[in-house]
């Protein structure tokens, strides 16, 4: 545990070391979030729109796109790049020898980047644009549930990315597969278009796939558009998908680790 905390601290510090980079990252997020705010404000208009029998105001949609842009790293599967990079440089073999072990080291690194990236890059954009264009703030109960769903979604996305990334030990390079995952995730998670606006057939498909748990679930909770029964369904879905992806991630790791041991890293 001590080594994992140390790893988290080192990764976070490394991320923050280049202040100019952090500033540009925040500017980038501000730009993307700002363009989304203007687009969706123009689409929904001052009077808002009806979704799932509930009213979605202009401020609600602004809140949605701000939080979706802030959390967009959930749909980027950066763990694929992290693993491929370490395999390519031969650092994966060193990670295996270190006390936390390769899977724990990768997970902690990714979590540190997610948390620090959100705090440094995304949060300023949410605060600035929220102050300018309005922001829906729910009660503490809904905030807590939404945060739990985001953390569960992060774990799910990282496990999916892990299964793709770790195959690099066998296939040499799996970074390109990531783009297909990014596209499908963006469409079916609510990151690109809120799922309320999808046609019925696509919406049905989205609700079967795990990706809606990354954006649609926490943001519906945040905006008060999900009742307690739906929230229970989100957690059940998350638990189910985590139960399905964890064994796959473990099997993929064992299959890939065998290649590393044989080839010497």
């Amino acid at each position, binding site marked *: 545990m001590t080594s994992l905390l140390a790893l988290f601290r080192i990764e976070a510090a490394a991320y923050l070391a280049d202040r100019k980079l952090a500033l540009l990252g925040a*500017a980038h997020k501000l730009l993307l979030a700002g363009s989304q705010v*203007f687009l969706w404000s123009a689409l929904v208009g001052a009077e808002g729109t009806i979704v799932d029998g509930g009213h979605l105001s202009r401020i609600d949609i602004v809140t949605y796109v701000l939080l979706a842009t802030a959390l967009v790293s959930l749909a980027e599967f950066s763990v694929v790049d992290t693993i491929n990079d370490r395999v390519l440089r031969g650092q994966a073999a060193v990670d295996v020898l270190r006390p936390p072990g390769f899977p724990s080291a990768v997970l902690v690194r990714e979590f540190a980047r997610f948390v620090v990236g959100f705090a440094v890059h995304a949060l300023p954009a949410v605060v600035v644009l929220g102050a300018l264009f309005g922001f829906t703030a729910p009660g503490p109960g809904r905030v807590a549930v939404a945060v739990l769903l985001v953390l569960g979604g992060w774990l799910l996305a990282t496990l999916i990315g892990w299964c793709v990334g770790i195959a690099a030990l066998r296939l040499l390079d799996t970074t390109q597969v990531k783009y297909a995952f990014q596209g499908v995730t963006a469409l079916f998670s609510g990151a*690109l278009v809120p799922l309320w606006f999808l*046609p019925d057939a696509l919406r049905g498909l989205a609700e079967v796939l795990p990706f809606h748990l990354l954006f649609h679930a926490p943001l519906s909770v945040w905006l008060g558009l999900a009742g307690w029964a739906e929230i229970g369904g989100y957690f059940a879905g998350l638990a189910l998908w985590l139960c399905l992806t964890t064994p796959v991630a473990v099997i993929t790791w064992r299959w890939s680790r065998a290649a590393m041991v044989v080839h010497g890293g």
Partner: protein
Amino acid sequence: MRDLPFLIAQTSLALQARLQNRFNFVVEQVSNLVFYVCATIGLAIIVARFGEIGGFALAEMMLVYGLNLVTYFIAGTYLWGVARTLEGLIRSGELDLVLARPIGPLTLLMARSFEPSMPVKAVGAFALCVYALLLLDEGNGPSPAIWLSVTIVGGTLIQGGVMLAFASIAFWVAGSRDLVELMIYGVRRTVDVPISVYPSPVQLVLTVAIPYAFVNYYPILGLAVSIENGATTVLASSALIVGLVSAAAGTALWRLGLRRYRTVGA
């Protein structure tokens, strides 16, 4: 122009090298295709739900998105790598080696930066533009083939000019690569939708300072939307001129930076 045979030969070599792992190359193209198809479906869903975006219906929206992509991919085939790597070359001193060669430095860097997946993606984006034009079927407008050719040439010059201009900042500022990425992944993507959804100051920036609006918005106004005044007519038909000016500005900045470049070995 005298460096063209070298560029062609290097491109051929780079392509052969990339195709050594054909499976990987094919997977990359399929993966990219899935990504852009999903993005286009997302755009179509928004238009279907709301009827239009910034006054543009489905066909115009496909053109807006397709033109931004096709021009970026064509320009990026040789220049994106230059924009991303120049800062590292300056920092490591490798640019000195480039300058010592008998080939023009920009040509050499472009040859080294050739990205084979870009032209493949450009073909897909071009197909999207053609499909959108078929949907539009504007009887009274300019010839679609000529319009598309001129717009793509103009847009490619704009995208290339911006890439080169921001790449050249590396001659003055350390860490400019992140600025280049902010420009290409951030500012360029703001014209994935018509600039009419943005407030006037943003429209002005995208028209005058960084003329991305001429890549798609103004040419499409000239083709598909009834032109109401002389100013819009001028803007709609001037994509090519703006492209030439952008490319000239980018090249001038590159030459200025190169003249200013000093290292221990230079």
